[in-house]
């Protein structure tokens, strides 16, 4: 095969994707470039390519998920891998034991890549230390959700190119959001300016250590923002002390058509889904010209194909 000087090339050598915090600029760009190459497959009539032929990908989900799980399954299928669905609940056995035992069982079946979602932050890290297979974090506790962060940033980059100095607001329940954390680290590495917007009760306790600007008044900064990522209101927290009422939340932090009048004309409106229409996002905004929600879903598939492809490449190298 004709080649070129290998020294010019970036080598991807992570066989696990655990978070965006540890990724360099070059690594993020490499994932995005690879994802770009995968977008074309979704436009074909036969949406399949063979690079993971004969490999086994396990979806190991200890928490409910529909879209992330489906997106990973479809991504793995499009790369010709065999996909095994493994649904487990953490309720019965203590978490550490279950995870280790499950991991050993899976290893015995000869698997290659584990996609894990777990309610405990750090579970994917633990798993990566006890098995040989590649581990991809599909959300761990309030810690990280790296592929969601990647697809959000990939979508921004696709629309805006250079991220330097771009102002990105992440709005809502930051404290309980792994999506927010992955976005913060990735955006920060690429030189964007991150604003966290929400009530003080929904800010993480370690917010002072994050590379962000905190703001409790959405209207005060909305006019400067290039991107607004509206997090989902988590109903299970409504009515608690941190979250007095839905109406108050929408009045202060919901993105309504009225509030959009104060935003830049070309502002990008994002949402990780599923949307609570009329709560954090008014329907007309969600379906409006600034919304990238469906683009995010399509990009999610390409990004997950890229991640599966790259961790397998790194494993083949070792």
């Amino acid at each position, binding site marked *: *095969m*004709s080649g070129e000087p290998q020294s010019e090339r970036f080598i991807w050598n992570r066989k696990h994707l655990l978070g965006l915090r540890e990724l360099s600029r070059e690594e993020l760009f490499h994932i995005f470039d690879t994802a770009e190459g995968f977008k074309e497959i979704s436009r074909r009539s036969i949406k399949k390519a063979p*690079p993971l032929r004969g490999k086994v990908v396990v979806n190991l989900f200890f928490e409910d998920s529909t879209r992330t799980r489906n997106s990973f399954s479809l991504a793995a299928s499009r*790369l010709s891998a065999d996909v095994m669905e493994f649904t487990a609940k953490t309720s019965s056995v203590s978490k550490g034991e279950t995870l280790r035992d499950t991991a050993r069982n899976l290893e015995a079946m000869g698997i290659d890549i584990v996609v894990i979602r777990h309610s405990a932050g750090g579970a994917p890290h633990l798993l990566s230390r006890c098995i040989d297979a590649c581990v991809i974090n599909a959300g761990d506790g309030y810690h990280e959700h790296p592929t969601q962060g990647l697809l959000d940033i990939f979508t921004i980059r696709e629309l805006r190119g250079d991220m330097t100095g771009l102002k990105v607001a992440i709005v809502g329940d930051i404290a309980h959001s792994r999506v927010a954390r992955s976005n913060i680290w990735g955006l920060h590495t690429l030189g964007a300016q991150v604003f966290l917007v929400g009530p003080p009760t929904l800010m993480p306790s370690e917010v002072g250590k994050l590379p962000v600007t905190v703001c409790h008044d959405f209207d005060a900064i909305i006019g400067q923002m290039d991107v607004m990522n509206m997090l989902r209101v988590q109903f299970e927290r409504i009515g608690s002390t941190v979250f007095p009422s839905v109406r108050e939340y929408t009045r202060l932090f919901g993105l309504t058509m009225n509030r959009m009048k104060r935003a830049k004309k070309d502002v990008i409106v994002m949402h990780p889904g599923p949307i609570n229409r009329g709560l954090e996002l008014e329907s007309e905004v969600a379906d409006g010209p600034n919304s990238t929600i469906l683009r995010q879903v399509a990009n999610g598939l390409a990004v997950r194909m890229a991640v599966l492809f790259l961790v397998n490449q790194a494993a083949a*190298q070792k």
Partner: protein
Amino acid sequence: MQVLLDEQEIGRLIHKLAVSITASVGESGDLALVGIRSRGDILAQRLQRILQEKGYGRIDRGTLDITLYRDDLNSMGHQQPKLQSTEIDFSVDDRMIVLVDDVLNTGRSTRAAMEALIALGRPRCIRLAVLIDRGERELPIRADYVGKVMEVPPDRRVQVYLKERDGRDEVGLG
């Protein structure tokens, strides 16, 4: 690196390829050129220009990335191919496709390219044009249009440099 061919010779070989392509496909009008990344695509561009100057009319051209179809993806050690886009914005169904590559060696790139192409549709036929055929085939594949056949010791590498990508036109022996 020993220089085997210079700019002038490369230009002459590309013209020769263009002439042999037109001689064999005639004016059928369904010809499309598909270049294999990362230098076959540049050669395809130049061939397209020459054929159009010769009055061949409109010729579709696309670029194929064969990374996903390589048979050595899981055994490449530290040589990691980077996936790039395949850009073919026309239907390949029932077309006469000429695949364009810089060097034909083992034939494995060509096999991967055929698989990648067939994943997009069913061409009427696929032909192969290469600037250099250096032999050492590992698969039953041959080129239909060859710029130059070169006999090279098996441990040496034929490297093609093209202006659009490398700043100069040259074929070297590494």
